[in-house]
C-alpha cells in the first residue's frame, strides 16, 4: 500500500502538477515537495508527490551496484 511510482513533471500550476506516470498523464498534488521544476522526477503516492528523485543520486546508486567489493 505504500506503493509510490516515479513520474516526470510536465506542468505546474500552484499546488497541482500534471505528471507523466509510466506513459499515463495524471494530476498530482505537489504541496509536500517544494521547488519543483518541469522535467524533474517525483514519487507519487495516492495522488500526491511525496519526494523528488534526484537524477545524480539515482546514477550514483547504479554506480554502487556495479562496484566490486
Amino acid at each position: 500500500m505504500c506503493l509510490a511510482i516515479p513520474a516526470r513533471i510536465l506542468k505546474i500550476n500552484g499546488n497541482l502538477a500534471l505528471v507523466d506516470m509510466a506513459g499515463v498523464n495524471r494530476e498530482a498534488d505537489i504541496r509536500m515537495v517544494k521547488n519543483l521544476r518541469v522535467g524533474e522526477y517525483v514519487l507519487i503516492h495516492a495522488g500526491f508527490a511525496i519526494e523528488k528523485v534526484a537524477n545524480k543520486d539515482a546514477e550514483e546508486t547504479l554506480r554502487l551496484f556495479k562496484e566490486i567489493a
Partner: protein
Amino acid sequence: MKFVDEFRKRSIAQGILEKIKRFDSTMVNLMEVCGTHTMVIFKQGLKGMLPENVNLLSGPGCPVCVTSQEDIDKTIDLAKKREVIITTFGDMVRVPGTSSSLEEEKGNGADLRVIYSPGEALKIAKQNPGKKVILIAVGFETTSPVIAASVLDARKEKIENFYIFCSHKLIPPAMKGLLESKEVRIDGFICPGHVSVVIGGNAYRFIADKYNVPCVITGFEPLDVLQSIYMLLKQIKENRAEVEIEYFRAVHPRGNRIAQGLISEVFEVCDVRWRGLGNIPKSGLRLKNDFSKFDAEKEFRPRIKNSKQNPDCVCGDVLRGVKRPTQCKLFKKVCNPEKPYGPCMVSSEGTCAAYYKYGGG
C-alpha cells in the same frame, strides 16, 4: 521507464549476488517490514537466489493485514448505515470481518467506492451533499500525510459531510515491539523505502543504537533489495549496527519535513491494537481535538461485539514472522485469494497472497 529499467538488470544482480555469497556467516534472519518489499522479493524469486545462511522474514508491513479485527468490524458496521458512502483503498474491501466484509455489505446495498486518492473522497462528498462520506484511513507514515492533507482541504473548503475512520499506524514502534518480544531473532531490518521518505533515516536510529540491530532503508527494485541485503550482511560481519540508506535517491536522514508537518498538524500519537502484535504503545495516530468533527468514530459510534477471526487462521503469527503461511492449516486447502480467511491472503501485498501466487519464495 526512467528510474525503473536501470534497476532491473540481471547482469548487475549476478554481481551483487556474488558479493552476498562471499559472506560465510552463520544463519542470519533479515526482516522486511514493508508489503511492497515482500512482493518484490517473491515476484522476483529473490529468496531462492540467496545462499542458505540468509533467511528473509516478512514482518508487519501490510497496513490492511495489521488492522485489528475490531477495526475491520467497525468499518463494516459503518458501511451498514444508509446515509453513508464508504470510500476506501481497494485492499480493504474483501477482508473478512467477524460476520461479514465490506464487499458483502456492498452486495447488501451499501454504497462503497474504491478510490485511488483521498482527493476522490472529497470530490464524492461535494457531489453528494445529502450523504455522509467516510474515508477508511488505513496506512503507515507514507499514507497519513496524504490523509492529513485531505482533512485540511475539507476544513478549508468547508466540506461538512466528510469524515475519516482513522486506523493509521507507525512502523518504528512495531519494530521495537517485535524486538522486545524476542519471539524471533532479527539480525537486520530491510527498512521500508516510502515510509522512510516521510520519517527519514534518523527515525530508526534507536533500533541500531539501543537494540544493536542493523537497518538499511531500501528501494523497491530487485537490485535495491539485493544491495541492501549485501549492506546488512556487511554490517553484521563488521559488528556494526547503523542506519544506512540504500534508497538515498529518495530518502534523506531527516525525511520530508512538510509531510511530517501535515501529520502533526492533524494527528496525535496514541496506543493502538495491531493484528498479531497486540496493543503497542504510541504506535498509532488519531485525529487531534481540533479536527474531531471529521472523526467517523465520534460521529457514527460504530458498534461491534465479540470480534473474532477464524480460530485456525495464523495471520497474526505470520505478521510477527513466527510462522510461515505454509504452516497454516487453512492455507491453499480452503484459504485462497478467491476465498480468503484472513487479511494476509486478501491484500495484494499480504505474505499469504505472496506465498500463494509465487510459491515458497
